[in-house]
């Protein structure tokens, strides 16, 4: 039992050293490009349609540092948020009504260009800030009974982001990526009696970087 406890103590110390030691240390290489593949968790903010957070999304991003600190790139991401709407009567017009439950769904597909600034090039931990601009395709759908109503729209999107790339090796060929983001898209859609005018989100991304 005591031996097991010692092993745990050593393991915790080892992990702590691995995490702490590289701070302030210069790695051997400074990468001049980046490519991320991330899983993302998206939280709709004040969206009146499919406003439940979910992890049904991914992010792909690549770019090039044209100076040691500044980089430009391109990104594409997708995400789905769903929400169950319990049985209720909806007034469709002033003379028609429908009673049903629904599954609401919003699918977002933003893509475009990104500009980023990294703070400690060549470090094991490379924190950065980024701004993304581009277009967004969004589709809102309502599933009810055996039917589906949907509407899609194109909009403009912008997304500030803070993140960090973590390189466990000195050559920076492979690493991990974490990020926090906020995004806003100008998409407008209408399904049944539900309207969306702008999509606000925040969330985080976890992935790998090359």
């Amino acid at each position, binding site marked *: 039992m005591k031996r097991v406890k010692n092993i745990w103590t050593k393991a915790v110390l080892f992990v702590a050293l691995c995490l702490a030691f590289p701070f302030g240390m210069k790695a051997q290489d400074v990468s001049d490009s980046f490519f991320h593949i991330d899983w993302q968790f998206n939280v709709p903010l004040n969206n009146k349609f499919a406003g439940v957070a979910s992890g049904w999304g991914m992010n792909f991003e690549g770019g090039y540092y044209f100076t040691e600190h500044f980089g430009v790139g391109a990104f594409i991401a997708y995400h789905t948020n*769903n929400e*169950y709407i319990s*049985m209720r009567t909806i007034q469709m017009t*002033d003379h*028609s009504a*429908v009673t049903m439950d629904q599954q609401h769904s919003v699918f977002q597909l933003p893509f475009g260009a990104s500009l980023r600034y990294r703070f400690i090039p060549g470090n094991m931990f490379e924190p950065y800030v980024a701004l993304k601009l581009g277009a967004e395709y969004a589709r809102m759908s309502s599933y009810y009974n055996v*039917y589906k109503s949907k509407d899609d729209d194109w909009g403009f999107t912008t997304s500030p982001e803070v993140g960090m790339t973590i390189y466990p090796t000195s050559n920076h060929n492979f690493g991990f990526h974490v990020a926090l983001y906020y995004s806003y898209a100008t998409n407008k859609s209408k399904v049944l009696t539900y309207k969306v005018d702008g999509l606000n989100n925040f969330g985080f991304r976890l992935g790998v970087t090359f």
Partner: protein
Amino acid sequence: MKRFVPILLVLFLFTACEKEPNTDDLDDNFLVYTDYDKTEDFGSFTKFYIPDSILLISDSKEAQYWKDDNALRIIEACVDNMEERGYQRVDKKDQADLGIQMSYVEDTHYFTGYSDPYWWWDYPGYWYPGYWGNWGGWYYPYRVVYSYNVGSLLTELISLEVNETTTNTKKLSVIWDAYMTGLLSSSHRINTELAITAVNQAFIQSPYLKK
């Protein structure tokens, strides 16, 4: 322009990544849609007539009617609701100022491709206007937007107040209709209960339908 084709292809591929919600979570009850003529005074009617069978709409070229105990229970649910709203059932059509016709769609595929929302008027054996007297056809005073699927029950309320003519030129007004649809189970008893629940819900969401 061709340079955008790969981009569009990539976007198209990504749209396939949409995570569709689990529709198994949806309730088993029928969807209930009701519509009515806002200009009609439902309090002006007194007596209604309803046939003792439900028209079955299927692939058959002959008119078929559903008359078993399950059908009678669904009809009875409609009658009970009408009577609770203050209307009186009569046994003769010519004594009624309201007519109720109920239809049940058995086969969705038969109707695939119909774009006219009034296609059921042409169905063989559909409630012909002459059934109610000397009438020239139907009309809806409001826009009809529904379509049909497996397990759909249609209930229509017809105004018989307008005086008949001898020329068959006047049209009967469908002043209220309820469209109830849903997935069916293999149990007739459960399907009947679903239909009865739907009929009751149709009246619940139509509070204007009263004497």
